[in-house]
């Protein structure tokens, strides 16, 4: 009773741990559950051009903030002979290039590789709280126009969000009223419009700030930043498109700068210009996450297979597939009741099949075992001692494999050269056993057991080569615990095997007939 209870507790613990770790890695660290999960990685290059006047030069450039939902993979700064430092202040990060003397056209580059994750942005932190909006100073005419506009908009809106949206749409309306034309016209710059919106909101007592950002589109060059208005509503900042009034952060949009600091300051230079170009690359999500997690030194990743050298990782890719094979063997033997020659011989064949591909592997296997059996039947007439005979079979197997390799090479069949991946000792044992089986129980039993082994091997092969299974076993090794739990449960199975339903089928008929 206790033994069973204990087993179930162990099974539940294993299942919980295995599935729990998997879910943690999926949801907290972002590991995708499918190998085909891909992400766009954006490489953004900012190019700063200016003409130096021969004086000391300081270039200060605002860098995009690290926000949740966006992962920066790599940042590069390049410029010839400039001193460089990255400064962090409450208002954001800035890059600073400096040089004692410079003249002529100068260029500095900033390159960023980033990708978006599905994570939701956190609510504003204490540092991100807005200051009281400063009442803007308008002259008399403008003030009247602004107040009238605000009254108009206010009457049409119920809350701050709608108010802001309404204000923006009104300002963008195709047929502006006279009032409106005083405040804004076709020639007004984007910056002017942003500030006007912020000022109008401030007049209404609403905190707002300017946000500059970049639309991420593949292959774009000479892009510039787009202005957005961010409004403090409720307890969070909400982004508004200043041309459409649409709220929320658009997809594929990188927030570059918040607040009214300058994007670029150049001291000792003139005609400064900044342009952005954007390239998109597609990367496997898994690679990105592993890299990111390694950088962050997330404990679960730091102490995982990923920390091993690539060669060992590849070895583990194979090793971690073995439990899948073991599970298949357990199922085939305990539930189906298939007889195999040697308990785990099918797994070894399956491993060899992985290297050789299915059809080639099967042909090679049958050729080697068939030829081996022929030669073995001759050996049995030589009256050899057992150990000597199995050793002789090993040599025969090696000779067969060598001849297959050489022959296939001459014939130009590259595939058949993978024959060397078959475990030779195991093949020899298989041949020896089959041959003894043949002598004692006849060819039927040989075909049953040989067929059973091959069938199990092929099923194990199909599972072990499944892309998703391969991916999951390697990237979520904790699933091995789930596998273990399954095997423990199967170890308790005392029901009939499928083969027994066949074995006893005659009995059922008799009993049914004999029943009164």
């Amino acid at each position, binding site marked *: *009773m206790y033994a069973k209870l204990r087993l179930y507790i162990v099974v539940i613990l294993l299942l919980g741990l295995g599935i729990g770790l998997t879910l943690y890695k999926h949801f907290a660290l972002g590991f995708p559950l499918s190998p085909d999960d891909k992400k766009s990685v954006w490489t953004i290059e900012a190019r700063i051009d200016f003409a130096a006047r021969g004086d000391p030069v300081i270039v200060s450039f605002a860098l995009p903030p690290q926000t949740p939902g966006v992962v920066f993979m790599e940042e590069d700064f390049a410029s010839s002979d400039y001193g460089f430092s990255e400064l962090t202040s409450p208002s954001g990060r800035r890059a600073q290039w400096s040089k004692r003397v410079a003249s002529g056209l100068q260029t500095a580059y900033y390159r960023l590789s980033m990708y978006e994750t599905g994570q939701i942005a956190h609510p504003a932190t204490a540092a991100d709280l807005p200051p009281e909006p400063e009442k803007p100073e308008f002259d008399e005419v403008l003030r009247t126009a602004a107040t009238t506009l605000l009254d108009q908009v206010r009457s049409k809106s119920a809350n701050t969000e709608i108010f802001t949206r309404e204000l923006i749409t009104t300002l963008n309306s195709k047929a502006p009223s006279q009032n409106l034309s005083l405040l804004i016209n076709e020639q007004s710059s984007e910056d002017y419009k942003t500030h006007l919106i912020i000022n109008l909101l401030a007049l209404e007592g609403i905190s707002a700030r300017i946000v500059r950002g970049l639309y991420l589109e593949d292959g774009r060059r000479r892009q510039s930043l787009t202005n957005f208005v961010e409004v403090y509503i409720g307890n969070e900042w909400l982004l508004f498109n200043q041309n459409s009034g649409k709220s929320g952060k658009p997809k594929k949009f990188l927030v570059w700068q918040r607040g009214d600091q300058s994007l670029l300051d150049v001291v000792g230079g003139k005609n400064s210009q900044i342009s952005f170009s954007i390239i998109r690359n597609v990367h496997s999500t898994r690679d990105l996450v592993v890299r990111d997690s390694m950088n962050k030194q997330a404990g679960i990743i730091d102490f995982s297979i990923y920390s091993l050298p690539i060669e060992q990782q590849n070895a583990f890719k194979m090793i971690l597939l073995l439990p899948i094979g073991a599970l298949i063997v357990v199922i085939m033997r305990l539930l189906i009741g298939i007889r195999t020659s040697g308990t785990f011989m099918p797994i070894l064949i399956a491993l060899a099949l992985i290297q050789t591909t299915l059809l080639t592997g099967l042909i090679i296997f049958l050729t080697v075992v068939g030829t081996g059996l022929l030669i073995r039947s001759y050996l049995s007439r030589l*009256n050899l*001692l*057992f150990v000597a005979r199995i050793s002789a079979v090993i040599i025969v197997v090696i000779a067969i494999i060598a001849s297959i390799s050489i022959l296939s090479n001459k014939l130009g069949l590259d595939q058949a050269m993978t024959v060397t991946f078959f475990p030779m000792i195991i093949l020899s044992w298989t041949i020896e056993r089959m041959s003894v089986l043949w002598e004692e129980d006849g060819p039927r039993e040989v075909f049953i057991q040989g067929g059973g082994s091959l069938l199990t091997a092929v099923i194990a092969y199909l599972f072990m080569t499944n892309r998703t299974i391969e991916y999951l076993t390697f990237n979520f090794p904790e699933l091995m615990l789930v596998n273990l739990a399954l095997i423990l449960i199967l170890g308790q199975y*005392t029901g009939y095997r499928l083969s027994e339903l066949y*074995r*006893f089928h005659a009995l059922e008929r008799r009993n049914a007939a*004999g029943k009164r």
Partner: protein
Amino acid sequence: MLLASAKKLRSFGIIGMNQRNFGLISRYNPRRLYPLVDDKLKTKLLAQQAGITVPQLLGTVQYQHDVKALKEILHPYSQFVIKPVKGSGGKGILVITEHDHNLYFKPSGDAMQLSDIERHVSNILSGLHSLGGKPDTVMIESLIQLDPVFSDYSYEGIPDIRIIVLRGYPIMSMLRLTTHASDGKANLHQGAVGVGIDIGTGRALHAVQYGESVTHHPDTRKTFSELTVPHWDKLLQLAAACYEMTGLGYLGADLVLDRDQGPMIIELNARPGLAIQVANRAGLAPRVAVIEAIKTIDPDPQSRAAFSKRQFAFDTDIHPPRLLRTRSDDR
């Protein structure tokens, strides 16, 4: 229908391989006792100590260089059986029924040279037939003489009687008859006929070959309905006594009837198979349940055999205390 429904099989009380391994073997047979039955020399010794008749041991060969002495050992005997001490499932057993100068004849009439026998012995020694391929010893036994009762029911071999003994009580039995297909071996999956034997009387109940019912011996064409195993009480008592002898709670005792010496034990098995259920057209589970319900085991093999005779006789219905359940079910 090719497949039986699991539900029906369960209602007949058929025990499957998994349940046998889990609920019977691992439950009643401590591993440390296995060598007693896996090593046939040890079994023989134990049986002799317990006063049970066994085939006479003519000689053993333990080392490869002793193979040369084989000729000397075999010289006095015209009939003998060569067996691997640790063989399983009847593998590696060589029966010689006639010895003429340098030729040895198998029951089928095939002749063998001494060198053939020597090779067979070497194979056994190097572990070809032993469990796990471990080095083995060869034993040479006297040949069992066919009891005339079976002469009509056996072809080129000696039939044996398998009795399953649970906690010292015989619960099911079957007679295994050699056929031409089984090459004179009493091995069911090689084509021997399995005949379910009524524990109460020793009468034949039902026979199968290759899992299908048969009514006649395929070679002698003799019907099984007239077959009754003689010395039945003695056979049951011998089987029951194997419990004290080995300590194994679930075992299969293989017995034979010798024309001159009567019932004797040839082999014990700690992992008896399940084909016996097909031969008996009955499941083991109800009988297992009856025995498992017994609180204290009777120390006397004879009264245990008598108990089984009463309990498991064909005519009496079996009333298991808990309906068709073995103890392993409700763990």
